[in-house]
């Protein structure tokens, strides 16, 4: 198993400022009126793009899970390539902070698989579900209620899960360059072309 590769944050070849712990403090600005307005504005753009991209449609989302419609993968991979160049570019200029999500092997895998089962049953994900609701897919209402119930259920179990599953294989804010023992710039020089080739290949060999 690859887990044996040890690359803790401190021994990385290039220390990267990954942002502080993502916890709420009373003064945190994401609750300020200005940020709430910005959030809504960015949300409108996000929802608009999701709908135009077709990923608010049930059959497009199920299509990717049935390996027949790759629209979702094309949207995601393009967003990752552009966003990666953009965000690391801005970061290298000191204009933005990174927000690396923690790597917890057990929680990522178990949670990820549970999410996947839910994804197929619901047919929308949290972002595209909001978009589906906006375009008039009323079955997304049941999905929204389920999402809220599931969130609360997780909160019910959060103390126990925090002591168990979320501790198993906790590697902190581990990044792919560290994992492979590479410098960030070198990694991006490989990562971006590889994803681009994947997009081109997808485009050539898939009907949609």
């Amino acid at each position, binding site marked *: 198993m690859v887990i044996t590769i040890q690359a803790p944050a401190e021994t990385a070849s290039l220390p990267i400022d990954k942002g502080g712990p993502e916890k709420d403090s009373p003064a945190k600005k*994401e*609750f300020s009126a200005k940020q*709430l307005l910005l*959030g*809504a504005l*960015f*949300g*409108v753009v*996000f*929802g*608009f*793009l999701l*709908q*135009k*991209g*077709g*990923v608010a449609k*049930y059959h*497009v989302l199920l299509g990717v*899970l049935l390996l027949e419609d790759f629209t979702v993968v094309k*949207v*995601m991979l393009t*967003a*990752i390539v*552009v*966003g*990666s160049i953009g965000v690391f570019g801005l970061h290298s200029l000191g*204009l933005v902070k990174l*927000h690396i*999500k923690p*790597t917890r092997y057990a929680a990522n895998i*178990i*949670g*990820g698989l*549970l*999410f996947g089962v*839910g*994804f197929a049953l*619901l*047919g929308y994900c*949290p*972002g595209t579900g909001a*978009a589906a609701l*906006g375009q*008039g897919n009323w079955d997304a209402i049941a*999905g929204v209620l389920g*999402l*809220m*119930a*599931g*969130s*609360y*259920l997780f*909160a*019910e*179990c959060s103390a126990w*899960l925090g002591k168990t599953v979320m501790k198993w294989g906790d590697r902190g804010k581990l*990044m*792919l360059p560290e994992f492979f023992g590479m410098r960030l710039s070198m990694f991006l020089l490989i990562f971006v072309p590889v994803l681009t080739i994947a997009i081109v290949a997808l485009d050539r060999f898939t009907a*949609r």
Partner: protein
Amino acid sequence: MQSIRLRNNESEEPVKTFLLMSISLSAVSPLVFSVVAPGSHPLDYSGPAWSPYLVGGLIGVLSMFTFYFSDKPLGASTGYARMAGMLGKVVAPKHTDSLKYYQENKPAVDWELMLVLGAVMGAFLAAWQGNELTGEWLPAMWAARFGESSLPLRLGAALVGGVFMAFGARLAGGCTSGHGISGTMQLSVGSWISVICFFVGGIATALLMFRL
């Protein structure tokens, strides 16, 4: 010491029950669905209005904007958690305050919840502009597979699916936006593992539902 052990055991019970229920449900539900009639092909229905590369590229640019102006990556699932917490505060305020998750993530209207509400609005505008407003309860592809009168089954699946999805997202630490786009673009190992597992779980379940 003993009282602490006792408390631990008590708090484990609902988790164990939930895990058992979820495992058995996930094993059984696709089989139940698949008993019903013929398959249905996603390409029989209309595709996206805009090129997926244009949309993906613009979502990448949007990410740069959210990082710069809001110091936040795009993510949707915690918006639902905050909403649930706010509802919980109304129904059972003391209990909600006692939960670890809501002590660390206060149940209030935040940036991400506004993002979700905005996305509903934005998708409405896009569908309205592009003449794609659906106003339907049953997706056509679902109806082709499970029948025109399968609305209760559809709503049940959507509800249960939502529960699984949100629980999984909170455990994994994000959803298709937070992990799948924002986390992967920042090269987080956990995000790449999570998104792969999203698709593994999703593909297996979808194939059981539609191709068995």
